[in-house]
């Protein structure tokens, strides 16, 4: 984990600027809100899209994340980086919304079943593509979130652990479990990774 003594000068400057922005935002400075938004929106949007696979829903969840963050920013105690705190809100908002939709679709026609089906790149084998997407969608929600955050979005285990409120050990364990489940689900395509 980074400490003040191991930070590069550039990173330390960025962090100090972020802290100053957060403090201004906590005082109600609207321009600070905008600056924080511009600094973090891409990562948050990417994260919500990775998990949901839907543009409109990702947009709504991103908006929800920032509205909640700015509404509660006075209570932000700076124990973690602002971006990490935003991630935690985004994951919470996203997974709770998916849970709600799953409950609702269990009562109605499955209009939203495709919601969590991941979409793979169009240039790969279409059958494999579909099976990978289905296998990822079949993972338990927490496991899937860890997998997408790490392997798809490139977050570190420290970032994932902070966002989900778990230990880095749990993040690593769940990634390992997710990959093992996917390997079993995709066993018929074993020659793809054993070439």
């Amino acid at each position: 984990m980074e400490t003040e003594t191991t930070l590069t000068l550039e990173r330390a400057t960025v962090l100090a600027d972020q802290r100053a922005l957060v403090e201004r935002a906590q005082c109600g400075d609207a321009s600070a809100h905008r600056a924080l938004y511009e600094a973090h929106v891409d990562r948050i949007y990417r994260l919500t899209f990775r998990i949901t696979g839907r543009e409109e829903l990702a947009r709504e969840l991103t908006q929800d994340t920032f509205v909640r963050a700015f509404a509660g920013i006075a209570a932000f105690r700076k124990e973690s980086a602002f971006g990490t705190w935003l991630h935690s809100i985004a994951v919470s908002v996203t997974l709770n919304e998916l849970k709600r939709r799953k409950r609702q679709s269990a009562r109605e026609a499955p209009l939203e079943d495709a919601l969590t089906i991941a979409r793979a790149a169009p240039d790969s084998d279409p059958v494999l593509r579909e099976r990978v997407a289905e296998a990822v969608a079949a993972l338990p929600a927490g496991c899937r979130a860890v997998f997408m955050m790490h392997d798809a979005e490139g977050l570190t285990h420290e970032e994932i652990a902070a966002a989900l409120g778990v230990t880095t050990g749990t993040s690593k364990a769940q990634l390992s479990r997710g990959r093992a489940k996917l390997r079993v689900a995709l066993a018929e395509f074993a020659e793809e990774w054993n070439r």
Partner: protein
Amino acid sequence: MTDKPHDLTLDFGDDDDVVLPSDPTFDAWIAREATSLNAPPTAPRLEMWKAIEAAQKTLADASAERVSGVHPLKRIRWFVPAAIAAALLLGIGIDRYTLRLGRPDDRAAAHTLVAAAPSDPSKLYRLAAVQTLSQAEALLTAYRAGGRAGESVAATQQLGVWGREVLSSTRLLMDSPAGDDPQLRTLLHDLELVLAQIIRLSGSPVDTTDRQLIDRAMRDHDLLPRIQTAVPAGVAGTASDD
């Protein structure tokens, strides 16, 4: 209080304690494949920022009670949810004291609290249920009227603010002894789902698909008729159906 994630319960699967073997070759392959899963498009930054700004303004206006034009009950609807919450919390407080009556020191405190409350706590919950459902009926009626009249973003924002108040009361009711009634609980659960959908419209242009989903949910669950059946005629705050 810390900066921990709030209200997140993670599902890691029923077999969470089972150790599965790993395969580094597969792990490397799936990590490469994963980068193309749900590859995100460019974020619509400006559009999202405008929606965020609008939502922030709505929250600020709601706090200052500056909302208007949604429904003639705009003053009452701010008072009633607070009153409902107070009534429910008082009722819950009564229950907790009666459970502790076995301890001599609690009896005097329990008597004082019970003496200040209605003699029949169930009346409190029934009153809270009627008030909540009356507000819900008024909101759902306003929502339907907005769809026919051609709804503005501002109107959806105001519905969203109102919806949050009613949703809060609905959830309090579900957690109270009133929620033990199976019929009422089912009604409150159906109402909760529709309210959450209406709240999600807040601040954005109303998408036809979103509205169709909400209309369908209301129709499939027969929501308004069930609410109107549960609310006695002539209760204050009841909006007339159109």
